[in-house]
């Protein structure tokens, strides 16, 4: 059976070109198109393609971020990146390990990439994450019944670390993710603040600080009924920085 392919590129001519090249090759069937990372993830959940041809540079969620989210899935599709010219990304890829194609794409190279396409391994994803350092993700992905749930960073109220997992509390509920609190703090440092050894809260949802009878500090977040404990050291800093 021919592999089922999803084409992801923000530019219509680029999608058209891939479509016609794939038609020529006749070794894969195109099952859909998407114009950005979010759209791509949505379609992947619905259509379950075997291979995703993923443009690196796209407005909104880019290809690298989409690929990182994809791996939350139990059965992630294989990924082949396409890029016109993108120094950091191209440098990060080991051509044999991660499939990527330079635009304008040659038919032979596309055929070879399709034949060797495979899903990204965790080390490769870490490599990608490192290569796009300084570029914050726009979303957090959590494993979910339907496969994966995307949580926009603006909706995240806090991250709470457990022994093994991290809980992300957001405006639409709660999910478990595998990202470590320290890595999250590094990535989203400006918009979040560490209030305790195990909690990273969104600055935009900070409401007030309370102190209970035992002298412990708690922070109240907008839309969260339960207060979160604040370490003594951070309480003073929070008050000063955010005038709580």
């Amino acid at each position, binding site marked *: 059976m021919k592999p089922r392919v999803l084409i992801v590129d*923000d*530019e*219509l*001519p*680029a999608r*058209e*070109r891939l479509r*016609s090249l794939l038609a020529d090759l006749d070794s894969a069937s195109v099952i859909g198109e998407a*114009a*950005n990372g979010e759209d791509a993830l949505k379609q992947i959940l619905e259509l379950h393609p075997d291979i995703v041809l993923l443009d690196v*540079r796209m*407005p*909104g969620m880019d290809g690298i971020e989409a690929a990182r989210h994809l791996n939350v899935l139990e059965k992630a599709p294989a990924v082949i990146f396409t890029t*016109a*010219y*993108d120094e950091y990304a191209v440098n990060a890829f080991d051509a044999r390990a991660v499939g990527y194609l*330079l*635009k*304008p*794409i040659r038919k032979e190279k596309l055929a070879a990439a399709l034949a060797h396409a495979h899903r990204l391994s965790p080390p490769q994803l870490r490599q990608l994450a490192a290569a796009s350092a300084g*570029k*914050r993700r*726009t979303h957090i992905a959590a494993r979910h019944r339907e496969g994966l749930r995307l949580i926009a960073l603006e909706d995240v109220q806090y991250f709470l670390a457990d022994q093994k997992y991290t809980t992300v509390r957001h405006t639409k509920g709660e999910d478990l993710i595998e990202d470590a609190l320290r890595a999250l703090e590094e990535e989203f440092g400006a918009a979040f603040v560490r209030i305790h050894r195990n909690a990273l809260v969104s600055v935009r949802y900070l409401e007030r600080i309370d102190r209970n009878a035992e002298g412990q500090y708690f922070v109240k977040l907008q839309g969260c009924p339960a207060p979160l404990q604040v370490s003594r050291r951070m309480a003073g800093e929070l008050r000063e920085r955010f005038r709580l």
Partner: protein
Amino acid sequence: MKPADAVPDRSFYLPDFCTSRAALAIVLIVELTAMLLTLAHDNVNGFWTDLARTSLFLLWVGLAGAGLLCWLGTRLGRLGVARGSLTVLLLITALIALLSMAAYALGRSTLVSDAGAAMLFPADSRSFVLRNVSIGIVVTGLALRYFYVTHEWRRNIEMQATARVNALQARIRPHFLFNSMNTIAALTRSDPALAEQAVQDLADLFRANLSDQRSTITLAEECEVARIYQRIEQLRLGSRLHVEWKIDSLPHAALVPGLLLQPLLENAIYHGIEPQPGGGTVTVTGELAGDLITIVVRNPVTDAQSVREGNRLALANVRERLALLYGERALVKSGRFDAQYIVTLRFPHIERERKSAA
């Protein structure tokens, strides 16, 4: 030699005197000066004896001076060129005066019987010190001038090299080139006539980019280049890109440096339209008031803007070339106002005939 980025142009022009290389250079300079001084007057004790004595004294001065400059190090840079040079001159002069007095005291007490010593150390200590200090000022001054000129020369070469690289990078964004090629590759199948036009447009754009940047063209020609660029981007971005042109009142024959408008439009599309999934509108307005032409380019910005590093090269390049042509009368302003990024150009309306007549 330190790498250029370690201490940018704040560094003082003097080399680092803490190195053994510098000490060797000092010894060489001292020996040459000693030779010059010995040759310049009668050698009562014979040439070699006089040379040895002069060398001995000058080595004191030279190495003590190098030690002093080594110790001062980067502190001189903070004073600026003029005050730093004056400080060095004063310090070296003071050092020479001190060492001269010490040498005089030592020389008179130990070498007093020697006839040559009487000649070397006159009865009046002041004339001895004064002579040494005067020679010192002249030699130090010359040395400072030498260091300054070589430093400026080296910096000039570095600046020229950087400017050349910057100019090249400002011309064509690789991202744009490869994406356009990809678009054309797609069009050759789906719409060969459009592909043909795109190739012609790309050729015209490259010709404009490769032409001598110092040459001037008319405003109408420059607007045409910008429109050609827009046509290429339109193929790629489709309905995401809107460009509104309000330039009817601009004088067509006005003289401008080539690539004045196109790089600004390119920046506006690259930073303002491409990062937005829904696209947006770039507005180009132009007007003539009195003899001043004003052109304003606006593009929308979002908070996610910071994700794409700003390329200020193009803007710096436009500013530089307008200033080259119109000097103080040209103005380039840019900044973010609410949700828009606005670049304003203002320059005098001059046409070719009038310019050559003036």
